[in-house]
């Protein structure tokens, strides 16, 4: 098997396993699978129950159900939410864009700023200012993102009244949306920045003691030139993979940030689904998040190999 095929197969196997888990969970859990598939506060008459049972294929064999499940997914059919009276995929796609609006800028800003500041911190690790900065980002790194949100919201919105308390918009104009998004994005950026900062700092600290850096210094290059022309490139490589893996974390973080700020994205969708035990929405959201995380990984893999000639795909 060639190298490329091996990598692709890994992604495909990951998707298949996670999707199969999603199939098994509601059917293997204690209780009636119909309740597990429909959600708990749905009240139905006996005749509709029987009808639904056959319509959803629960009276068929497991293997047949499994095939039906995949058939549905390939047709973007993620089930029907009886709680919200609409197809799950529709609900999720309408919410997803808001979550991405929150997560993507934070991921990018946090990635760029985190690697830049982290590189400087690693390069000048003995300076007092850098140590203070490192301590600050370390503290943020150790704080659950939603707690950071609570603090920011309490101080800046409750006490100082600088930012709106909740939601994505009140009037819907671009400036209004930006005003609402500022604080959540700030918190998310700090969250992602601190992770990249710690990694990049460690990475540069390691590269700093390598021979080529010493040679560049012996050649008479300026300190900053060595950092940005030589060390930065090498230290950056592991970051790309980590950024992709972090995408899952950022996305999960965004879910919690949304809950605190009462924003109508995926996070609140999942939260409401949890409160009302709306299982189809919960599972659909999990699938979509999985697909996004796996694609981010694939993207990083491709990017990595185009940047680092040593691991080019054959």
């Amino acid at each position, binding site marked *: 098997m060639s190298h490329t095929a091996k990598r692709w197969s890994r992604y495909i196997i990951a998707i298949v396993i996670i999707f199969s888990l999603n199939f098994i969970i509601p059917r293997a859990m204690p209780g009636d699978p119909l309740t597990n598939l429909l959600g708990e506060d749905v009240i139905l008459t006996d005749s509709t129950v029987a009808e639904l049972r056959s319509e959803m294929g629960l009276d068929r064999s497991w293997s047949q159900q499994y095939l039906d499940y995949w058939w549905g997914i390939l047709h973007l059919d993620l089930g029907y939410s009886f709680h919200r009276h609409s197809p799950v995929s529709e609900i999720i796609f309408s919410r997803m864009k808001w979550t991405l609006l929150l997560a993507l800028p934070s991921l990018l800003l946090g990635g760029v700023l985190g690697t830049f500041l982290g590189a400087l911190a690693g390069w000048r690790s003995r300076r007092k200012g850098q140590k203070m900065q490192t301590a600050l980002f370390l503290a943020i790194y150790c704080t659950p993102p939603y*707690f950071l949100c609570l603090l920011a919201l309490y101080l800046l919105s409750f006490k100082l009244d600088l930012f709106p308390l909740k939601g994505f918009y009140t009037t819907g104009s671009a400036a209004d949306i930006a005003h609402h998004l500022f604080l959540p994005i700030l918190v998310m950026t700090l969250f992602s920045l601190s992770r990249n900062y710690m990694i990049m700092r460690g990475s540069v600290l390691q590269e700093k003691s390598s021979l080529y850096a010493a040679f560049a210094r012996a050649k008479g290059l300026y300190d900053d030139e060595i950092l940005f022309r030589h060390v930065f490139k090498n230290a950056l490589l592991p970051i790309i993979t980590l950024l992709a893996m972090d995408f899952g974390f950022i996305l999960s973080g965004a879910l919690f940030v949304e809950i605190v700020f009462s924003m109508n994205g995926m996070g609140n969708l999942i939260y409401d689904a949890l409160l009302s035990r709306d299982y189809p929405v919960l599972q659909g959201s999990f699938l979509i998040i*999985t697909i996004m995380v796996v694609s981010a990984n694939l993207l990083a893999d491709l990017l990595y190999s185009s940047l680092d000639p040593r691991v080019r795909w054959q």
Partner: protein
Amino acid sequence: MPDVTKFSRGGLILFLSFLLMAVFSPALAPYDPWVRFEPYLPPGHEHLLGTNDMGHDILSELIFGSRVSLIVGFGAALMATLIGTAVGLLAGYFKGTTDEILMGITDIFLMIPQIPLIIVLAAFLRPSFWMVALIMGSLWWTSTARVVRSKALQVREMGFVQASRALGFSDRHIIFTDMLPNIFHVIMPKFMLSIASAMIAEASISFLGLGDPTMKSWGMMINFAFTRGGFINGYWWWYLTPGLCITLFVLSVVLLGFALEEQEEATMRLE
């Protein structure tokens, strides 16, 4: 490096005080965390950190909450470390196909969005806090496995391992008596960092109200403050201290983990 030791000493002191707090909770807490006083009292003489909506004393809740939070953190980290070490050791020692398969599985686990999966599982299972720890542990072993594997690949080529093999010892014997003791020092920092991520995850799960409702962990306290109006009404004492406790404890563990990693790298350089 003087600052490293200063930081790690601070981490150690913090860590030990939290540990003592968890062990001696009944002696340290001023009240029973389930006894009701006047609700919504701000911090004062009678109740150093105030009371919540049920009139429970927050300081006592915090002290007893440390038990739940620490047990979940340690339990999950222990589970993760055991699985990670086993997978990494086997992959690194046997190499070849075993390695390919085990590392393939590791890659796949790395791609699972963990928090969403735990949310889905917790929603169906309504787990006790032991289950939460087990579920998290069985998802968090990947980075330990990778580190252990790369170390195992080095150790297996060392003289004493080759000698054991030449003498005809069984694989099991070599893995347990030759490999494991020489890998232990890379496992410890990973263990500490796993505690950190497990604590944050537990706090997040509890914040969604998915934790064990009979166990008041720190995350659960924040969840109560958030859902029962403590946040909206500005009762900051209700959620501020549990949040700080989570942050400080995670910080102490991370500092210790980093210090151990640093030490490991320093010895590597000496070699």
